[in-house]
């Protein structure tokens, strides 16, 4: 089994996606003048979210909603609970301020779409089948933890906040969670994939499916640059956060794998469930925290989610969660 770990680890580390991520890190570290213009970043994001949503929706139509709603509810519940477990660890083991603990907790309960997408890529390259409709779990897991984190931060941390303020902050968070571009694109494309069915898929697969892996690789080049820019803040984050940002995802991944297995997903689907549990948001959650908990220190939550957890999951995490999935399925 050890050998097997090395095998899939090597395959992952030598995949174009991960190598382009590393190239992006290198570009930042050698101070290259390579830059992705903002519209290119946005275009790639729109493409990736739309494509993954569309394929997910088509898969739900194929599988029937009946098979999807239970695991989706489990995903939603898990997303809600993770921050409640993260908070005390961060607050008391990490001795972080309440508002910082709440903000970081929100990040780890929420998910990283890019990590999920890289995971589907990894599974495809490794020849492990998975339920394409798992994209639905991605969609339902982005927001709950953010709302919980905002609530935690507001209630436990801020003394100046009245109920009216709390309600308006919650309303804002909820609106952003549902109408925010990532959820809107993901859920919207999912509905479209569901409604337009096989025919829609055939018509657009040369765009939404065929070039997907190459586009993801290019996108990870940019994400490597973005993540590496935060490497300088690692010291500021402190050693507790560094440990937390690798150990906590692994623990969540293990639990996620257990649940995925328990609700009857395949090994591939179980891996994706574990990946969702393990991944930390670094776009939606920071945006929400800046608005709803602006007193929280962005260096702490961005550095841990973007500069530690994301690269960790991308390189070592993915093979590890696949192994966990096999272990729970009893096929190591």
């Amino acid at each position, binding site marked *: 089994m050890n050998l097997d770990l090395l095998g899939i680890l090597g395959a992952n580390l030598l995949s174009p996606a991960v190598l382009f991520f590393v190239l992006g890190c290198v570009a930042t570290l050698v101070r290259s003048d390579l830059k992705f213009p*903002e519209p290119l*970043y946005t275009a790639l994001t729109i493409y990736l979210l739309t494509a993954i949503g569309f394929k997910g929706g088509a898969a739900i139509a194929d599988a029937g909603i009946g098979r999807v709603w239970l695991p989706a509810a489990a995903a939603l519940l898990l997303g809600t609970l993770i921050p409640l477990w993260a908070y005390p660890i961060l607050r008391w083991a990490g001795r972080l301020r309440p508002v910082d603990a709440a903000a970081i907790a929100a990040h780890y309960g929420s998910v990283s779409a890019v990590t999920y997408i890289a995971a589907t890529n990894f599974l495809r390259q490794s020849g492990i089948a998975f339920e394409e409709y798992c994209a639905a779990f991605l969609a339902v897991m982005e927001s709950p933890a953010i709302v919980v984190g905002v609530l935690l931060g507001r209630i436990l941390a801020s003394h100046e906040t009245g109920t009216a303020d709390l309600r308006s902050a919650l309303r804002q968070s909820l609106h952003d969670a549902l109408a925010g571009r990532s959820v809107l694109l993901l859920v919207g494309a999912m509905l479209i994939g569901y409604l337009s069915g096989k025919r829609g898929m055939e018509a657009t697969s040369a765009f939404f499916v065929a070039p997907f892996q190459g586009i993801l690789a290019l996108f990870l080049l940019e994400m490597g640059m973005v993540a590496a820019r935060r490497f300088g803040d690692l010291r500021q984050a402190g050693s507790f956060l560094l440990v937390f940002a690798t150990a906590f995802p692994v623990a969540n991944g293990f639990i996620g794998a257990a649940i995925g297995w328990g609700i009857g997903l395949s090994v591939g689907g179980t891996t994706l469930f574990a990946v969702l549990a393990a991944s930390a948001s670094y*776009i939606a959650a920071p*945006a929400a925290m*800046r608005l709803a908990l602006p*007193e929280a220190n962005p260096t702490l939550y961005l550095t841990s989610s973007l500069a530690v957890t994301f690269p960790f999951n991308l390189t070592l995490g993915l093979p590890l969660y696949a192994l966990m999935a096999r272990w729970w399925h009893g096929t190591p």
Partner: protein
Amino acid sequence: MNTHPMTKVTIVCEAFARESVLRLVESVGAHGYTLFAVEGSGARGVRPADIQEFSNIQVEVILQPPAAEQLLHRLQSELFAKYAMVAYASEIQVLRPSKF
């Protein structure tokens, strides 16, 4: 020149502050604003402009001097602590004072 003094308030801030700033701009009675994306560097580090969410915007608002004063002070009291932000006023001359 048949022009009238007016004040331009310029706000450079992180893109996350967009909604909060525009709400404030509206609430002091400004009739409009101009906005564009910028890169920048300041007390809170370098902010390159490749990810919309992590980048900066520059907002320029033309208003009557008293409203400008109010805008600056509310920016200071309500937003300076929360966001990476710089704000300043400058004197300009316009032709149609009633527009602002």
